């Protein structure tokens, strides 16, 4: 019987033999640092440099890594140690990962095992183990459609901001699906490359709405105590604040209104005037339309609305100007799927679970210990529990890479 790790390596090797021409080298490959995760030992090889894409693909074919990364940064000497590399600039990158987004599925498909007492649980990782209080867990995450859809929604919000507010054209941006649970967006324009970490932090704060004050976006009390605020079709954060407020008030329950810090009396007033509020959007908006709701109350509501309009990017990835990120059209070691480019203008119709399939031929016999129902391409599989089954290679590899199955065939 062939060992699972060896089997996966053989498959990955075959992929890089056959598909090396599809590897997309990053722009200015000679100035980038590369990093590779080794399949068996799970160690990282860093500080590698390549003069051209041929050298890189040759290297991939021999090493057969589980994951391939390159630096968002450009260096004078990419192979030197960090301090000696000579930083020249870096692409502006954004990472949206289901891990960082509260999703409707509540991650019920993820399991965790306490690192101390072995207690097992499902869903979002608790802060500490309910049994022993330990804070270290082994996690098994799953890629589910709901998670991926949430990530997509956040990505669409991000693209909207980058296009309308930041003025980046779709030509300057490239978007890809990571091959696991998220999307990466790169801005490669010359003008953003030299932005330092602090400047990028400001961009992160803009996207997430951190430090946003609605008073700077037109929500204020004018002389003679007239309340004014932004309209739905305003641009930038003004419009987002209005749309977020609209959206929030449309669905918010009295409990949710109290939860954001509104007094019972204000909540009652808002609930009684739901119709008036809805109607008001046709004119100047609800600000000042109801007695008993003052400017501070509206700011509290608008703040919550703004939060709904922000795009949930990972704060660390964007501010790190030395970041390593996965190379497009290489395999993801946790799924056997590949990182694929997504057409920015057509993201709504992009199906990650179809486009990211790297292995399209053959079947593999495997023994699945435990797997929820999942879809790949047009086919739905599972759920499986201690089952021996023959699956198409992509589905089998996903389970093998996730560590929930082992190979049951000679090869």
């Amino acid at each position, binding site marked *: 019987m062939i060992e699972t790790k060896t089997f996966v390596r053989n498959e990955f090797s075959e992929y890089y033999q056959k598909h090396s021409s599809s590897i997309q080298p990053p722009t200015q490959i000679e100035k980038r640092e590369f990093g590779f995760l080794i399949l068996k030992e799970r160690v990282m090889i860093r500080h590698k440099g390549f003069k051209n894409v041929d050298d890189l693909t040759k290297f991939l074919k021999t090493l057969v890594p589980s994951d391939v990364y390159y630096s968002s940064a450009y260096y004078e000497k990419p192979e030197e140690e960090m301090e000696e590399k000579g930083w020249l600039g870096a692409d502006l990158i954004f990472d949206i990962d289901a891990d960082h987004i509260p999703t409707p599925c509540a991650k019920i498909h993820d399991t965790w095992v306490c690192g101390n007492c072995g207690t097992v649980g499902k869903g979002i990782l608790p802060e500490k183990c309910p049994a022993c209080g330990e804070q*270290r867990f082994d996690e098994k995450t799953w890629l589910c459609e709901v998670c991926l859809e949430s990530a997509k929604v956040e990505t669409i919000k991000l693209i909207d901001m980058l296009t309308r507010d930041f003025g980046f054209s779709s030509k300057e941006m490239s978007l890809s699906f990571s091959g696991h649970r998220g999307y990466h967006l790169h801005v490669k324009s010359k003008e953003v490359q030299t932005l330092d970490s602090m400047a990028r932090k400001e961009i992160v704060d803009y996207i997430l709405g951190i430090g946003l004050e609605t008073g700077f976006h037109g929500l204020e009390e004018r002389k003679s105590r007239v309340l004014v605020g932004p309209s739905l079709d305003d641009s930038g954060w003004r419009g987002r604040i209005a749309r977020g407020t609209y959206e929030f008030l449309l669905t918010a329950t009295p409990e949710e209104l109290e939860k954001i810090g509104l007094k019972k009396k204000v909540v009652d007033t808002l609930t009684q005037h739901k119709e008036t509020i809805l109607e008001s959007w046709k004119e100047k908006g609800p600000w000042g339309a109801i007695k008993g709701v003052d400017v501070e109350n509206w700011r509290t509501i608008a703040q919550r609305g703004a939060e709904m309009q922000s795009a949930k990017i990972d704060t660390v990835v964007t501010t790190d100007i030395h970041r390593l990120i996965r190379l497009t059209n290489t395999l993801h070691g946790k799924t056997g799927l590949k990182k694929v480019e997504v057409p920015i203008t057509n993201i709504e119709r992009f199906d990650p679970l179809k486009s990211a399939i790297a292995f399209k031929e053959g079947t593999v016999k495997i023994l699945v210990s435990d797997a929820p129902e999942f879809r790949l391409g047009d086919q739905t599989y599972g759920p499986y529990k201690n089952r021996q089954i023959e699956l198409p290679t992509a589905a089998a590899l996903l389970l093998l890479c996730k560590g929930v199955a082992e190979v049951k065939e000679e090869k």
Partner: protein
Amino acid sequence: MAKYPFTNEAAEYVRELDLKIEDMSEPILTRAEQRIEEALLNALVSTHSRNDEIEIPSFPVAVMMVASTADTLVKKRYALAEAKRVSLLLKDESTETITKLAENFNWKIKLVKAAVEEQTYNFTLHLTDFLKNTTEFHEKKWKLVNRTMLNGDVYLTKDETARLLAEEARRHVEKKLDVKGKFELPENVAERVERLKQMFATQRGKIQLEEFPKGVVIAAFPPCIKSMYDGLRSGHHLSHIGRFALTSFLINIGMTAEDVINLYRSLSDFNERLTRYQVEHIAGGRGSRTRYIPPRCDTLRTHGVCTGMDEICRGLRHPLAYYRRKLRTIMAKVPVERA
């Protein structure tokens, strides 16, 4: 030109004069020295109108003299004082002059007349130019998220544009002063530099930040640090940024690397070799040899490390500044809890 001696035009003028530092006339040297003296004493370079042939070259000469001190504080004060002079002048300039100066710095600036509600904007500036000149500002109105931005253009009033231009000038002067290595000045110039240095030595004591006293005073920790410190001691794990912030904070207030390492010992996945490497790296003992300082408050806020502000936090923007201030109030009423 004399008003804005850092422009390309002014630099070209000086180049054409083809003056060497050895044969600068006395009046130029005196005005250069005066620029620096005013900067160090009053934090502002004066703007009296005088002979252009003296005023314009006096700026590059002053820059050379300041650079030769190889003193960071002197350089900072000088750049700031020149910028302040610019800032005062810009108040009375027309939008045309402001545009011209902005273009001198290769800003992507446009003259507009846009009214958003009651606010009238005169300019738009590309966000990269905006960001490069606002990261040192801390007022909320300078945060990108609180600006009106469309298509990469940030809307600005004339006064705001002038403020950013002065900041650009400050950065420009600072960059000019950042000369690597030593260089020789002719004796008569070196004497003037020496005189300035001595004058500043008495001034310096008042400006420079006092060192922290020995011993770590937990009661003076800002809320974010206190929460991480307590958490760590009861075995809670910290985010990457959290670890960095806590470690660099403790190192900077005088805790030894050894004591910091011991703090991490209570973690279930404690790895002595790795922790030692990381802590010593932050302390400046390895590789880069620079000692790191903790991130500023707004950075901690971005990464979710800030636990919410208390009264002292409100006026400050750095955890170390918090410690320094709280320490002062505590010191007034000794004895204190020591770690």
